[in-house]
């Protein structure tokens, strides 16, 4: 038999002025199971709490109902009070008779009547409350960072700084990502390599950080604090532990006509290669698609010249398995492919380039040693047209609906750098809008216009036509002057939209995290939890969550690190006990619940059951991982048989409330 205590708070006059608290206490005292019903001036005060605690002990209460302010205000207060008196804190229910009653009603009679009904509902619910215990789950003290660009590097460094082991998984032979390809950074125009490469070295030298370059995540199991991840270390045919990065092999390799991805295919590399001089790890990699030895079995030059015997043509992919407490996704972005943009003649004319290609063309370590030359004839361009929003803010299926955010600023940077270095070059920028929010950004853009005389024209480029004289005809509209323009350009630079890396979607599936329709990872809350995914223990760093510039990326990377550290520093995590659970005897194994779970908390196992007809049957049944479940209850409604229920908000509890209210 239940022994329930009801405690009605006056809240000074906040409640008592419009609700007749004595009548409420009296009425609730007649409810079945209620053994004590009291009112008090301030229930949340120490003496009020003592009233509750003493009643719990004295009357051996099995449930407590506090009629007071919103549970969002003092539910925890009274739960703690109950716990200190030896009653399970989840046997406390709050009837909200202040915010949802006394404060909104003026008529004492109807407010009192409503307060009684709300109290009855809470009593009806508490009858069915079960004691709940928050479970604990241990935390593996190691983080995984997926992606070794500036976001991943920064996150890893910050986590390592806090004293935790971090692994970086990078799919390319070197970490560094897009930032390594960039020449200068806006708005300060400092050299990207100068600020990035020290961080790369720092990461490689930090003993807490392990870099798995040329590797991929192939499987993720487990949940927050307890992920088991399989990492594929792709065969690079060079023993990483032996290679000193001397580079002799890359000099001697006879296969020299391999498009160099690092320079956006603007020059060539050898079949055995180190992506760039400051690569980390500085280890050679053999490209099996081009290596003569691998393709024909005849060559072996690199093996002969390698003094440490690091070359291993027979090397195979290796899989390693590691436990992690937290995972940070930093998979970054890529410019979109421009194949569909025939109007810009990108595929027809080598002098129509993307902005990232321009970065390489202007970079001292790039194909032309830093001198800006047209790719077609290696001559100096005198007129350059920049086209903004190529594929960004696009309504059609060719492009992306969103703003890529960084293009306005890097185009201003490119324009400014070109005008600075080659004052005889005319620069035109066609834009829809110039978007420069950010510290010192608008000043930067204005400098480009005012100091460097870059011609900014509001309008879209309609067609780019390479001419036989080597010039490029750019046909565009000037929306402000309302006229059609033709510009004889030497080069055209396209600000291609950026999109999440292609590896992000399969990764999201493995991680059971959510993505938006553009394949950007979805944050747990767009305002308040911007660096966490909805899946506990998975954090988001950098452009995988949305377009970002470098300072924003680094800020988010550090924020993600802080969140990960906050998790790793705990020995175990306390789970919310108000989670879903499945009654195996009723579960159909139909997977409906799994489909609506935003956290991937539900898994299925085949289990043997003694069936009602005395037979033994193997049935597929759902189980909820209480450490992962956040208790939304979506599964409880998706479940047709009612096998899935939610602690603290069970079907019977909610229906008891409905009944009491409608009584």
């Amino acid at each position: 038999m239940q022994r329930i205590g009801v405690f009605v708070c006056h809240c000074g006059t906040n409640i008592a002025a419009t609700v007749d608290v004595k009548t409420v206490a009296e009425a609730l005292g007649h409810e079945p199971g209620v053994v004590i019903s009291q009112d008090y001036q301030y229930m949340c005060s120490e003496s009020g709490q003592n009233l509750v605690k003493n009643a719990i002990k004295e009357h051996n209460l099995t449930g407590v109902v506090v009629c007071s302010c919103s549970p969002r205000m003092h539910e925890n207060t009274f739960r703690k009070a109950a716990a200190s008196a030896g009653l399970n804190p989840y046997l406390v229910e709050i009837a909200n008779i202040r915010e949802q009653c006394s404060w909104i009603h003026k008529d004492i009679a109807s407010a009192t009547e409503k307060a009684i009904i709300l109290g009855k509902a809470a009593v009806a619910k508490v009858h069915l409350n079960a004691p709940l215990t928050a479970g604990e789950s241990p935390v593996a003290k190691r983080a995984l960072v997926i992606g070794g660009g500036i976001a991943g590097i920064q996150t890893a460094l910050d986590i390592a700084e806090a004293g935790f082991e971090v692994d970086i998984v990078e799919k390319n032979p070197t970490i560094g990502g897009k930032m390594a390809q960039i020449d200068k950074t806006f708005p300060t125009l400092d050299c990207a390599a100068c600020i990035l490469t020290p961080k790369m070295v720092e990461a490689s030298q930090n003993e807490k950080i392990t870099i798995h370059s040329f590797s991929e995540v192939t499987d993720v199991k487990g949940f927050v604090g307890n992920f088991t991840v399989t990492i594929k270390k792709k065969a690079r045919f060079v023993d990483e532990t032996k290679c000193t990065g001397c580079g002799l092999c890359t000099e001697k390799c006879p296969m020299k006509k391999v498009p160099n991805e690092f320079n956006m295919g603007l020059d060539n590399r050898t079949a055995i290669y180190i992506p760039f001089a400051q690569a980390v790890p500085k280890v050679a990699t053999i490209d099996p698609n081009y290596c003569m030895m691998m393709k024909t079995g005849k060559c072996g030059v690199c093996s002969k010249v390698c003094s440490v015997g690091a070359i291993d043509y027979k090397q195979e992919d290796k899989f390693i398995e590691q436990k992690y407490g937290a995972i940070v996704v930093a998979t970054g972005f890529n410019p979109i492919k421009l194949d569909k943009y025939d109007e810009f003649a990108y595929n027809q004319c080598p002098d129509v380039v993307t902005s990232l290609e321009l970065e390489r063309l202007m970079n001292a370590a790039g194909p032309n040693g830093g001198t800006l030359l047209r790719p077609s004839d290696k001559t100096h361009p005198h007129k350059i047209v920049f086209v903004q929003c190529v594929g960004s803010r696009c309504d059609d299926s060719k492009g992306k609906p969103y703003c890529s955010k960084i293009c306005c600023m890097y185009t201003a940077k490119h324009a400014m750098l070109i005008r600075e270095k080659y004052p005889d070059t005319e620069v035109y920028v066609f834009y829809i809008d110039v978007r420069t929010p950010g510290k010192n950004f608008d000043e930067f853009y204005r400098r480009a216009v005012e100091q460097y005389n870059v011609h900014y024209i509001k309008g879209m480029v309609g067609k780019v036509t390479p001419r036989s004289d080597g010039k490029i005809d750019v046909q565009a509209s000037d929306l402000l002057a309302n006229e059609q323009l033709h510009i004889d350009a030497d080069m055209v630079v396209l600000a291609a939209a950026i999109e999440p890396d292609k590896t992000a979607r399969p990764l999201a599936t493995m991680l059971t995290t959510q993505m938006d329709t553009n394949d950007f990872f979805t944050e747990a809350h767009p305002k308040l939890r911007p660096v966490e995914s909805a899946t506990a223990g998975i954090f988001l760093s950098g452009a995988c969550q949305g377009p970002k510039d470098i300072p924003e990326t680094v800020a988010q990377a550090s924020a993600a690190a802080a969140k990960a550290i906050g998790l790793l520093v705990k020995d175990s995590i306390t789970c919310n006990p108000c989670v879903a659970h499945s009654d195996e005897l009723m579960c159909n194994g139909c997977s409906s619940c799994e489909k609506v779970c935003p956290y991937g908390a539900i898994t299925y196992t085949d289990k043997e059951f003694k069936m009602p007809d005395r037979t033994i049957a193997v049935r597929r049944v759902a189980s909820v991982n209480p450490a992962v479940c956040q208790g939304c209850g979506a599964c409880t409604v998706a479940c047709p048989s009612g096998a899935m229920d939610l602690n603290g908000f069970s079907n019977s509890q909610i229906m008891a409330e409905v009944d009491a209210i409608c009584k």
Partner: protein
Amino acid sequence: MLKISIDKLDALFEAISASQTLYIPADREDGSAEYKKYESGMKLSNALNTVRSAKDFFFPQTENLVDFKMEGKNIEVIDIREESEDFVIFGVRACDARSFTILDKVFLSEPVDSFYKNRRDHGTVVTMACTRPAETCFCGTFGIDAAAPEGDAACYSDGESIFFEAHNDKGQKFIDSISSLLEEGDTAKLDAVRDKTREILKKLPLAGISTESFGGDKLMEHFNSEKWAELSESCLGCGTCTFVCPTCQCYDIKDFNTGHGIKRFRCWDSCMYSDFTKMAHGNPRLTQLERFRQRFMHKLVYFPSNNNGEFGCVGCGRCLSKCPISMNIVKVMKALEVK
């Protein structure tokens, strides 16, 4: 015999319904028939029988037994029983008329079911002889003559007139009450109709079904028969057969919490249901085979065993046409028949 011309049926119904509630089989839109409370203009159905049996009149699908009123911690018991009003059921077929005899054996033997008795006392059953039996009919198997139905009073139609015959005082009282509308008539044509009906009954496809292999003393022969597995294999475990059956009399008693009280009610239950006769320890019949067997053993063995050889089936054929998978007592009897 007293008779009334068929074209004066309306006047007859008006007369009966003037003094008490009258129920007659009436057509539904879909071509089937059901008992309806007579209202002016309503026509007597030509259908052989109603989809639902006539047992509802005495043993409705749900009925409240007692109320409990709850106020705070107090519970008050409220007796809700009332005397039933008088009513007439007109046009009951021979099979359904016999079903009342079977239900009486259950509900009127000690301890008497006062709810049932109340309605039984106040209801007058006026039967109607069949003239066009269907292929699903096998009332003859249980000694029922469709051309000579039981009931408080019986009616016979020769196509032009309806003849009345009282079987007991209640029936006589009923005929007396409408005697002003009746006239004495010649039964020569009627006798011919009845003879013809009996001829047809003999030719029906199920006319040969025999109860010889069944009865109270045949428990051991049938209980462990291997045939049950195959017979029950495709049974869906629904309650259609039991709910359309005029003799199935099992019920469950449940409490319904209205929020301010409890209504204790009883409702039909079905032995085909997995929670039938479920008790604290669980369910005595765990498989559909056992539940299926229960239904037919009850009708063909247990019931006769307890009721001087009377079978718990009247051969109305409703389960034959309504079972979703067309498994029925005839198929069971044929399979279990000892040749």
